């Protein structure tokens, strides 16, 4: 974009990545642990046994500490769209603003209102109303995830809108298309189910630590039982939704899929790379091998991406340089047509301003033909459409490996909890303790795949990050980046300190 330096764009990206990643340290715990608290309290209300109440209260304490930092890091995310991505906010605010506002109306108030009852209402409201409040916090948190992921899904797969050349922005045409977009649904189901895994592993991790220390044995066992059932069901569901995510990626963001699979040459019945080390010198179209070492399983990727046999899956080279046999335009052509679109739109606006209706109509006709490529007009060269391959590839594979590991962790812990043999293996408990930290890595890796994998686009094929930022000096953004870094790190350290103390102290009466 005119007048915005590359440094500003990059610092805005770093800042968004920083704030999003910090926010995502806390959110998956909130999403998963809120339901687990609701489960524990439900068991208490149904059985009337005090130990379940104490169990619920203990996990709620940890939930509350985590929730506070989640809120603190979350407010930045909403307003950052305006502060650092103002052109984005104008270009797509007509569509993107709606889910954010709905999130506030239907989700945040549920959380905020019933949170107070959940924590301070034990002796003030009836048992039933308290339980209802705990469920409302869980539902509110996850509803909030729905709306923000609908917004994110729309960025990955813009749908249900039309460009208005007079206002120079995209405008919503169909709300239901935005809400029920297949990408949005895949995002919501995969993100929440994997967050349930994180929450469950948090409970298993803390409980394993108690069992290793020989403390609070009864509560730890009970907690593990509930968390491993929840975690196991969530892992199976996460597998299904992960498969769905890959499928919709193939349909809507083939470059992202090619990046996380390391697929340069498109092919039919493509095999999947189960393990690989990326060749760091590899560039699109240079004919070099993409991997130094790789283990490939034939057919699987082709099947996953098309749900059938014999379908062509484009690789990075096909998408950059085009593949006429498959009807894929070269990126260079898209960029050229995009630049024409921007020039015609400018001509249209100038003609309108000058009151020259004939020239305006002519410019508009030309613009309309190239409008779908307008976003490409902000790019310089075809290779700009390629995201960082190694980061996307490794993040994806780490996420998948860990996901498979978690399946076994939950099975083993469920078995141990039902047969009452949890104390039998120190190694198992050590794995349980570590598993939460691995879950955080997997969860962050998932977002790296989703967000780094779609670069350079802020909105897929429509608006690259370079054209979406605020026109502001890089120095200002750099300063706020470090301000956020310092304050979020300080809050994280404080949170870990408090959390550790609370865990050391343990629950009361269990």
């Amino acid at each position, binding site marked *: 974009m005119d007048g915005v330096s590359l440094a500003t764009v990059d610092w805005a990206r770093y800042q968004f990545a920083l704030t999003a990643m910090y926010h995502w340290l806390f959110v998956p715990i909130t999403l998963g642990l809120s339901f687990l608290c609701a489960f524990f309290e439900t068991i208490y209300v149904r059985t009337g046994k005090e130990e379940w109440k104490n169990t619920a209260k203990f996990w709620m304490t940890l939930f509350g500490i985590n929730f506070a930092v989640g809120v603190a890091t979350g*407010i930045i995310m909403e307003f950052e769209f305006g502060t*650092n991505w103002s052109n984005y906010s104008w270009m797509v605010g007509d569509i993107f603003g709606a889910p954010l506002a709905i999130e506030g109306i239907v989700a945040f108030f549920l959380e905020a209102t019933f949170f107070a009852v959940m924590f301070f209402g034990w002796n003030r409201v009836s048992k039933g109303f308290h339980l209802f409040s705990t469920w409302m916090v869980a539902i509110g948190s996850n509803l909030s995830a729905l709306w923000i992921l609908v917004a994110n899904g729309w960025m990955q797969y813009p749908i249900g809108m039309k460009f208005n050349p007079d206002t120079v922005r995209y405008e919503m045409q169909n709300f239901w298309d935005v809400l029920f977009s297949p990408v949005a649904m895949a995002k919501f189901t995969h993100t929440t189910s994997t967050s349930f895994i994180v929450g469950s592993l948090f409970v298993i991790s803390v409980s394993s630590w108690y069992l290793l220390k020989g403390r609070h044995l009864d509560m730890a066992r009970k907690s593990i039982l509930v968390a491993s059932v929840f975690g196991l069901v969530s892992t199976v569901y996460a597998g299904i939704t992960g498969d769905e995510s890959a499928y919709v990626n193939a349909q809507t963001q083939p470059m992202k899929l090619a990046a996380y699979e390391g697929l340069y040459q498109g092919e039919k019945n493509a095999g999947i790379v189960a393990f690989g080390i990326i060749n760091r010198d590899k560039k699109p179209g240079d004919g070099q091998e993409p991997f130094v070492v790789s283990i490939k399983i034939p057919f699987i990727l082709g099947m996953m991406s098309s749900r059938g046999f014999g379908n062509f899956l484009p690789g990075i080279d096909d998408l950059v340089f085009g593949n006429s046999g498959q009807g894929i335009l070269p990126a260079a052509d898209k960029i050229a047509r995009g630049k024409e679109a921007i020039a015609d739109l400018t001509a249209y606006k100038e003609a309108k301003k000058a009151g020259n209706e004939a020239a305006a109509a002519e410019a508009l006709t030309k613009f309309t033909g190239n409008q779908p490529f307008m976003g490409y007009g902000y790019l310089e060269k075809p290779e700009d459409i390629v995201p960082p391959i190694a980061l996307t590839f490794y993040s994806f594979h780490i996420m998948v490996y860990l996901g498979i590991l978690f399946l076994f962790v939950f099975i083993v812990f469920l078995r141990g909890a039902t047969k009452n043999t949890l104390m039998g293996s120190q190694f198992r408990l050590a794995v349980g303790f570590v598993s939460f930290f691995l879950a955080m890595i997997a969860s962050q890796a998932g977002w790296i795949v989703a967000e780094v994998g779609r670069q350079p686009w802020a909105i897929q094929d429509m608006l690259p990050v370079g054209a979406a930022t605020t026109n502001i000096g890089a120095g200002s953004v750099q300063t706020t980046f470090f301000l956020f870094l310092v304050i979020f790190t300080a809050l994280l350290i404080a949170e870990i300190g408090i959390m550790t103390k609370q865990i050391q102290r343990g629950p009361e009466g269990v």
Partner: protein
Amino acid sequence: MIGNLDTAILQQLWWLLVSVVGSLFLFMTFVQGGQTLLWQVAKSDIEKNLVINSLGRKWELTFTTLVLLGGALFAAFPKFYATSFGGAYWVWILILFTFVVQAVSYEFRRKPGNLFGAATYEVFLFINGAIGILLIGAAVGTFFTGSNFTLDTFNRVTWTNPLRGLEAAFNLFNLAMGLFLVFNARTLGAMFLVNNIDCTDVPELERRLRKSCLLSFLCALPFLVIILAYFMFWDGFGVDKDGVVVMVHQKYFISLMENLWLAGMLLLGLVLVILGVFLTSCKTSKAGIWFGGLGTVFVGLVVFFLAGYFDTSFYPSKADPQSSLTIFNASSSHFTLTAMTYVAMVIPLVLAYIAHVWYHMGKLSVADVQDEESY
């Protein structure tokens, strides 16, 4: 049904909704006001814990109202969102910082292992209550005094002052608006705490709260006079029938005089606040917050109405008046405004459950803050 309404009607409806949410936020700033009163009214740990826990059961509602205000502005007036947040970068970033540190302070303050100690989190709460509200007031002030931006043909914003929004705080009216909100929040904070805390065991706290209510209100008065004087005498950013922005002499005063119901609402709002202060400071009533709160909402509505309605630019540009934003040129499309209006129909339900929970959570007594579960 709603889809058949004119775009102009929907735009005015959404400005009304933004005004309501904004005014409710101003009422809910009693939390921030209470935070700044902490050291002044609470002398012992028990008193401090009472104040913190009383506010701590409500802070998230205020926070969420602010987030909703942001979301509503984004959805209904995206050009404002893009222009103001991106343009006045530093003022918004600093406001956000004060809310970031607030969000953890209640939960972390008394927890062992909190790294910085309770006093630090109390300072965070003070910063949020003082600096945060001051800057929000200054930002609202620019609705009347204008900002330094231009928009190009693609509606991309360029800010022409290197202070990126902070310059707003150096304008007398904006500063008066900010300080008025700070002291009004303190007035409301004292009213709320008197209402919410059972002071049977801490009569001194109640006495100090009632006194600081009056004192805060008296401190707010000079700034209120400046604001009213501005509305009476100064020029405003009007929009003529062709959409051209022109300076109109005594614009806001004319709007008030041509719409006497609005002047009446302003007067009623002020009278209600004064009544709230009177009930809290000169009587033994605990009901002051309801009068003060309602009065603040009325005054807030008048401020937002004056900015957005009556052929006025609500976010004027001093640098290029024709870049100024009106509710008609800054809004979302007809389709989005319609869809959002349907969504907004759940707001009464949201207000109902908030009121229900507020009622059932009752008052806070000394016994409530002595266990470890309290803040």
